[in-house]
């Protein structure tokens, strides 16, 4: 009887929105964090693995990211989706690790943090994880090769525009234009997901 009640409790959480789960988690509900983990651990891990190319380090970082969500108030639902908070945090930490690994003490160029908006509604979250993956894959294939390549070099390897320019043997201005156009195109392709 009690076990059934627990199962029902967990099943109910599966239907909760990210924001509802975050609110429950902040109230000390460990199952809510477990549900968030089940929803996003794969996304966080695949990004960590892509940047770090090491399973152990990627697993360690995955734990770190969810522990951070549990222990800090850094995520604020009105500032953007939980998904983008998790990927932004994962990417930034993964690239920090990458740099400390290669002992390069360069100035860290960063992507901007989440921007606040007036609207708390988030159509992005209305799509299932599978729909999001499908949409983003489709959107990326629509980008011209150079634009996609430059975005991926910057995003996954944390290369600066001038490093990418050297890597691709292209003028800096051209690389900047590719990456900005790439992002604008990506955003345009993801229109229905974002608005």
């Amino acid at each position, binding site marked *: 009887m009690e076990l059934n009640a627990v199962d029902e409790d967990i099943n109910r959480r599966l239907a909760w929105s990210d924001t509802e789960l975050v609110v429950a988690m902040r109230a000390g509900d460990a199952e809510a964090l477990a549900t968030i983990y089940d929803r996003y651990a794969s996304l966080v891990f*695949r990004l960590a693995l892509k940047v770090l190319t*090491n399973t152990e380090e990627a697993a360690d970082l995955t734990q770190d990211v969810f522990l951070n969500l549990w222990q800090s108030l850094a995520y604020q639902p009105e500032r*953007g989706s939980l998904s983008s908070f998790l990927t932004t945090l994962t990417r930034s930490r993964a690239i920090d690790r990458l740099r400390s690994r290669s002992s390069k003490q360069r100035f860290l160029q960063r992507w901007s943090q989440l921007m606040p908006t007036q609207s708390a509604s988030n159509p992005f979250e209305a799509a299932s994880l599978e729909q999001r993956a499908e949409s*983003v*894959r489709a959107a990326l294939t629509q980008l011209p090769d150079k634009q996609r390549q430059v975005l991926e070099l910057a995003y996954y390897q944390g290369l600066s525009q001038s490093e990418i320019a050297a890597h691709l043997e292209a003028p800096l201005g051209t690389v900047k234009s590719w990456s900005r156009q790439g992002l604008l195109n990506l955003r345009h392709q993801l229109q229905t997901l974002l608005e």
Partner: protein
Amino acid sequence: MADLIPPEPLQNLLAGYVLGDLTPEETEVLQHHLQQQPELRVELQHLQEALAAMPYALPVVHPPAHVRDRLLRTIATVAPVDSSSGQPVVRGTEVRSIASAPSRRRDRQHWPFLLGSMAALTALALGLDNWRLRQDLVTAQAEASRQTALLRQDLAAAETQLASQKDLIAMLQQPTTQLVTLKSMDTKAPAKGNVVMTPGDRAVIVALQNLPPLQPGQYYYLWANEAGQKVACGKFTATETGEVFVKLVLPNTSNSKQLAITVENSPTMTAPQGPMVMISKS
């Protein structure tokens, strides 16, 4: 400066802002526009969300199951941060082998920069003094939350240490448990201690004192000599006073009593490269 630029170049600046590649001149132009058209922030967020969605396109892989177990075990001992600040907790001996402990060190280095850049960027986006004040408040609150989190992690570390002590007692009750004594390589250095191991059991307990201090990014590694091959048994760090009390779980059971400890510069070593600081007494 008073003139507004057409939508298309403006989009370009918004993208450059999210990508972090604006020149100082472009930053100034964008700041001007954001002051005139606060609604542009919505577009900025869409661009940020689009960029942050890129990892969805990566092939689906799942983290190993132990990550979830470890996470849930860790949070069971650490309450989530709420806005109230915690009372000081007596500092426990740090056990860096647990997953949460190293992350704390990173957080200390990472947070000021992250918060600093966040404050700078949001101030730029809005160009409003009251936003700055709010950011100061958010920063202060985040700092308070961070301090609470650190104290809670200390508590978690102390609890992990208690668990290690219980493991040690359980091991000492086993008739086959063996003690391997380690001595310092530098005869003048006072490092000493023991490794407790039970044949057939992958868990070992390492208890050492007076270890030389590590530089940031360095780890101690325990190695077992298995038929001439050095096998990594795990990595750990020491307290500020050079004390170690950790439980390591070996990848495989080991019967080797020939052990060594080295200092390595990477958390992912598979063969020793750094200087040996301790070795088992023959």
